[in-house]
Structure formats: C-alpha cells, structure tokens
C-alpha cells in the first residue's frame, strides 16, 4: 500500500481519492479552501458525450456510463438526470457539421441524432424554434448537482479511509532527485509535513503553481484561468428547459434548468482572462450579454427573475483539452480541464487511480491525446468544444 497525496479538493481530486481508496491505497487529500470551492461548484452542471473528436467522445461515453450508476454506487442523491443536450443549428453549413459529428459520435455508441424543431419544442417547451434549422440531440447526456456529487464521493472516500483536509494549503514538497518524498502544508497557521509515495496535482487553475513546487516550469502545462460566468434565475417548476440548449453559433450561449431547484442557468462564451487566481468578480457586460442570447433561445425566460451571477474558472490549455498523465517519477497531473472537469470526473478519477496504483487502467482514456508534455512539443489537439 502506498501513500498518495492529492492536491485539490475539487471533483477530480475527490473522485480520484475515492477510486484510489477503492484500490486499497492510502490517500491524503489537501484543499486550501473548502471542498469544491475552486471550479467544481461554479460549474454549469452539464454532462455530455457529444464531443467532436474520438478521444473525448470515448472518454465521455464511458464517463456517462459511470454517471448512470454513480448514485447507486455512492449511496447518495446526486440529482443526476439524463435530460440531454440539444445543440441548435442556425445555418445549413452547421446542420452539415452536426451530421458529421453525429456520425462520429454514433460510431462510438453515443446515440445522438438530428432532430427537427417540432421535436425540439416538445423537449424544451419554452424554446424559440424560429431562428433554428435543426438540433443535434443526445438524450443520454445530462446533468448532476456538482456539490452533492463531490460530497457523495467525499463521504464514501472518507469511509474508505481517505484523509481529506480542507482549509489546508500545500506549500511545498521535499524531494530526492525527481521523486517527491513529502508534502508540506499549512493549516490554521500551523505548518505540517507528511511523507508520501506519489502526488497527484488536481489543482486545475492552480496546477501551474503546484508544478512549480515540484521543480517544473509553470509554463510546462500552460493553463490560463478564464472567468466563465453564469447567471441563474429563481427556482422554477421542472420540465421547462431541462436539456442543455445551445446554439453554438451564438457565441456558445446556452441555457439549462438546474436539475435540483429548477432555476435556469445561462452561460455564454463571453470570456475574460482572470486578473488573478482570486478574481471571481462577475462583470456587467456578461450579465446583459448572456441574457440577450438566453431570451432569444427561450423568450418566456423574459419573465423569470435573475437571482445571481457568478464566475468560475475555465482552466484552459492552449487546445482546451486537459493534461492527464505522469509528469515526473511519482508526480502526476490531471488538470486544465477547460470547463469539462465535472463531467469527466468519474472516468478521469478511475483512470488516474489505475495509473497511479497499477500503472494502467481499463478506462478508455487516450493517454497520448491528453499527454501533459504535448504542449512542450507543440502538438496541440483539435480544440474541444467548451460547453457545460
């Protein structure tokens, strides 16, 4: 049994902790703030397999299968609902692109299909059908409650012996050669240290800082924090806009009804580079800009009330695909999820646990595709579409 330190108490860190504990490993998890405070709780809750490249489709197809059984496995209501993703086309060219994507997705077992606007209107009663030609619809996509999911993992992980500490900040490593031998941390003003056999950097937007502690360049994995903002309405009756609905040509704008309280979450690709890793300040242009799209997608939304706006980070890599794999002898990374961490967590957590514990995993994760050293080599992947 090895002792593995995980840095980052977001969904990736906590899911990996759980999976490692299932494999019998001893895990200590550090979160400098409270669990989920980085990006997990700020996300838009969506889960989809409708990607446009093989690696992400296969990974997410597997992840969705895990999601389907997660509630039962973890024994906790995580409000997972397969209410689908509906992408909407505004031009004939886009319809053709949708068709090509659907063919690729179908090849890997994702049951996406092209639907007409009548069917779309049945799925989303408040939808404005007029501007759209067709929809790419996958009924198996869905959503879950980020906080409950994280806590479901956390509760089970703790039962399996994981030592999960919040408000505990990692401040450095002790090393012998390339290998990390101990993690130094600070909690309540007190400094401590723990000997470890392996370390996983699951700090997402903060990952470059952790890499630096391990003696690597901050730019090795060039992750940039972009503020991705959301606006949410008051709780509403379910069934009005359940799927994530997104016309990609409208600046990636989308709406999705929260699976738990029914509030409608509105997002868009109106992005701002964060001024720092504490810059969660929402911006005025987003507030109005996102709603301009939202009411065009679903006009009755005009009568709902906005109750809050917040920002989280898309920890973006240059190709919007995460860096997943081994960085040094016993130092691993799963970060830079570019907005997809929550949906990928069940698959990535399992894959990482396998990699760290056994050097392999049955998860269909294309290690080469997500190779953390690809940036250094200048091999960028085709950009993954960032919604959710």
């Amino acid at each position, binding site marked *: 049994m090895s002792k593995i330190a995980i840095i980052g108490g977001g969904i990736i860190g906590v899911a990996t902790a759980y999976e490692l504990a299932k494999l019998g490993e001893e895990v200590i998890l550090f979160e400098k703030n409270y669990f989920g405070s980085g990006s997990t709780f700020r996300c838009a809750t969506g889960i989809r397999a409708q990607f446009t490249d093989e690696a992400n489709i296969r990974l997410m197809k597997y992840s969705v299968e895990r999601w389907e059984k997660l509630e039962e496995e973890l024994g906790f209501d995580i409000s997972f609902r397969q209410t689908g993703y509906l992408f909407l086309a505004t031009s004939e060219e886009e319809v053709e692109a949708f068709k090509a994507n659907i063919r690729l997705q179908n090849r890997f077992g994702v049951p996406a299909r092209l639907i007409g606007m009548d069917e779309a209107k049945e799925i989303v009663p408040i939808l404005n059908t007029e501007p759209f030609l067709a929809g790419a619809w996958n009924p198996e996509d869905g959503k879950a409650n980020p906080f409950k999911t994280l806590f479901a993992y956390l509760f089970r992980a703790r039962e399996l012996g994981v030592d999960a500490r919040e408000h505990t900040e990692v401040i450095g490593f002790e090393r012998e050669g390339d290998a990390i031998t101990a993690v130094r941390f600070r909690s309540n003003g007190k400094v401590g240290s723990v000997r470890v056999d392996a370390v996983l950097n699951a700090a997402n937007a903060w990952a470059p800082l952790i890499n630096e502690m391990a003696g690597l360049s901050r730019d090795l994995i060039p992750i940039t924090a972009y503020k991705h903002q959301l606006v949410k309405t008051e709780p509403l*009756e379910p069934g009005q806009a359940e799927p994530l609905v997104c016309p990609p040509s409208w600046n990636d704008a989308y709406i999705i009804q929260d699976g738990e309280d029914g509030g409608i979450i509105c997002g868009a690709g109106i992005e701002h580079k964060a001024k720092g890793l504490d810059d969660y300040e929402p911006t005025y242009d987003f507030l109005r800009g996102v709603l301009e799209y939202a009411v065009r997608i679903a006009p009755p939304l005009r009568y709902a009330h906005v109750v809050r706006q917040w920002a989280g980070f898309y920890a973006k890599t240059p190709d919007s695909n995460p860096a997943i794999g081994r960085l040094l002898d016993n130092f691993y990374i799963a970060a830079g999820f570019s907005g997809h961490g929550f949906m990928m967590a069940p698959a990535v957590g399992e894959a990482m646990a396998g990699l760290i514990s056994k050097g392999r995993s049955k998860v269909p994760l294309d290690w080469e595709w997500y190779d953390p050293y690809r940036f250094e080599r200048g091999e960028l992947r085709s950009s993954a579409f960032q919604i959710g």
Partner: protein
Amino acid sequence: MRLTEHPLLRFERGREVTIYFEGKPIKAYEGETIATALHASGIRVLNYSANEKRPRGLFCAIGKCSSCLMIVNGIPNVRTCITLVEDGMRIEPQHGKARLPGEAKPPEFKEAKVVRADVVIVGGGPAGLMAAIHAADAGASVVLLDENPMLGGQLVKQTHKFFGKREQFAGVRGVEIAKILEDEVRKRENVKVFLETSAVGIFQEGEEKLVLAVRNNRELIEFRGRAVIVATGAMEKMIPFENNDLPGIYGAGAIQTLMNTYGVKPGDKVLIVGAGNVGLILAYQLIQAGVEVKAIVEAMPKVGGYFVHAAKVRRLGVPILTRHTILRAEGKEKVERAVVAQLDENWNVVPGTEKVFEVDVIALAVGLRPSIELLHQAGCQIKYVRELSGHVAVRDEWMETTVRGIFVAGDSAGIEEATTAMLEGKIAGIAAALRLGIADESWLKEMERAQKDLLEFRSGPFGRHVLDGIKKALVVRE
C-alpha cells in the same frame, strides 16, 4: 380593515380601482400594493411554498423575504408586497415553483439609461437624505435613489417623536422629519431623486463606479459616479419557532407599513415578540390604530428598549412578559393562537409555564441587522460586530469603506437610531465631496462638528455599547 381615522395620521388614498383575486373582484386604491389590497380584504394566504406547499403570507412588506410571491396577469413570482395595484389586475396565489408562460416575444435589447453625478447615494432614509443635502451643499452633483415610492425610509412609518437635541429634530415625529428632509432635498437643484429605484449591484469600471439599478421593476438605469454612499438601512431578523412561517406572522416593519403607510389594520389581536424599541413602539402604534395588543414577550430578563417606550404601553394595559419566549404559532392556514412559555436563566423553557394567547397576528420585533448586501457585493471588507447588530462594512472616521469611494451611513453601518443615521449621513455626504476634491476646507469643520455631535449622542449607557462596536469596525487610515 381599512383605517379611516387615526390620532396622528391622515390617509390619502388614490383612485379606487378593482383587482381580481382568483376571479373575484376586490376593491383597491391606486398607490397601494397588491398585498396591501388583499390584506385589507382579509386575504392572508398569498402562496404555497416551493417544496412543502406550506401556506405563506405577507411577511416583510419590503420586497425582501419571498413570502408574498404570486401570479399577476399570468406572470409568476411577482413580489406583491412592493408591486402597486393597477385597475383590472388578475392575481392568483402561486402553488409551489412557478411555470413560465408558454409563449412570449423575445424582448428587444436596449442600451440602459445612463445617469451621471459626482455622488450616487443609495437609500433615501434619514442617512441618505442628510448625505444628499450635505454633499450637494458642499458642491457635488448628487443622485439619490430609493426603492420606495416615497422618501424618508423608515421615518415615514414612525409616528413617535424623536429623542436627541432640538437641532437634531428632537421632539419631532419621524413622519414629520421625513417631510422636512424631503423638502430640503427637493429644494436643491443639484440633487436628482429617483424613487421606486432599486440598486442591484455596484461594478467598478475604471475610476467610475457603476451602480446598476432598476426603476419601477421595468427600467434599467446605470448610475455612474465617482463616489457612492450606501445608506440602505436595515432588515428585520427572524427567529426559529414552530410554524414561524404561518400567514399572520409579520416582521414589525411590515405591520408598520400596512398600518401607518397604507392605513390597513394588520388584524384584531396581536402578540408582539421582542421588547426592544421596535416592539415597544409597535405596540403603541397598534393601540393608536385601534388594535388590541395582548402582550409583549421578551426573552431577556428586562426591557431592551427605552424605558419610556415601555411605560407608554404598560399604562395602556399591555403586559410585558420578560424571560418569556414564543414556542409556536398555531392555526390551519393562518395564525389562530400563539403559545409562549417562561425561560430559566439558561434560556431553557420552564415546563408547565405555557400560556396561550388567542391572536390573529404575531409581530416579530426581534431585532434588526444592517442591510449590507450592496457593500458586500461591491467588495467592501465585512466584519461581524455584535454591538452593531450584525455584519457591517469596515470603515474609517469619514465613513469610507475599504473600497475607495464607497461610503456607508446609517443603519447599514450598524443598527442605531435615526438621529445617529442623520449625523452619519451628514459626515458621509461631506466626506464624499471632500474626497472628490469638490468641497473646500471649510467643510472639514462642519464634518468635525457632526462627529462631535455623534460622540455626544453616543456617550450615554445605550451609546457606549455602540462606541465599542464602532471601534471594532473602524480602520484608521494613514
């Protein structure tokens, strides 16, 4: 249930109109809110809650608590306590979470109206009004916005006379002070007033501060200025007891609004929880409106408010049960009775001391806390200070918060009195003008005078407590 005569107030009602509650016509008057009109007609249940479908009625009456949401003309989640009646309105109780209308036209995107001034003041109560008067006199152009249809803040509900010194309006009723200050503000050409206008956020855009606001629930306005004074007042606290959400349980301020602003009796028999100044003053006002006050219960072993306010209601026969608490409200869809009991020295209920009061109204006067949402959202450092009754913005002697150019005054800076709110408003108004380089040196003296007056007012046993609190909330600037 509408008051026609009152020893101190005259109610001028607008044109009579008809609104429809579940299809039934109801008489209402222009200028009053939907919830007021329904209340005057005896309607207490306004909606059934989101998850448990519990009956809910009017609670805060100032648009903050979500207890009065209804469907108005087909549109759900309307806060009926702050939405004015219009002839022919169709009103339905809301059952659980709302369904949006099926079809609608997408609204056109429009640029918001922009209003610029040197100083933007949020809140037209005693602090905000005084801030406006003094910032304007010191040379600044000022906009003053307030959520309510009238200026004066809580002063407009205060029928009692104020303490303090004559130059601080001592011996003058709150309602009268509101009129005096409003007249002063209206006289000044460099003050523009926006009523029924709610500030919903502050954004910093370069050197400029953008106060985003909504007028009449319809119009978006960008108030742009270099300084902002937040004088947003206070909000009532709530306490947990069984069935504390039953219709007929109100915040004290809601009762004052119904009774003193709109001239509607809250009910016939009332139990008041809390013998601080608010509870005591409320009891007196209820009696003045011809409502029976069965008792005031107070968990502390003594009257928390001024003794003279207690003596006023005692001699009119209202018992004050100190060391008592409310255990529960009872009733099917609205309050029918209240059960109270005695507390021992460890705040535990003494068995066998339960008393039942047959009342149709329970008024909660369990304290106020500063309304700091805007300050908090704007990024001002916030600190919990018990002596100031809750979380407050850290500030300096000029009432400037930790965000340069954002000032605070009045109850939103710590719960005190209208008199101190006025003095703090004066300080903040002058300070903002000084900070912007608009006011000349002579205004420093004027501000120091207000600081001295404040210190004098606070030097008694009641004020000393506040002074301790202010020390904790104060930052000293170099």
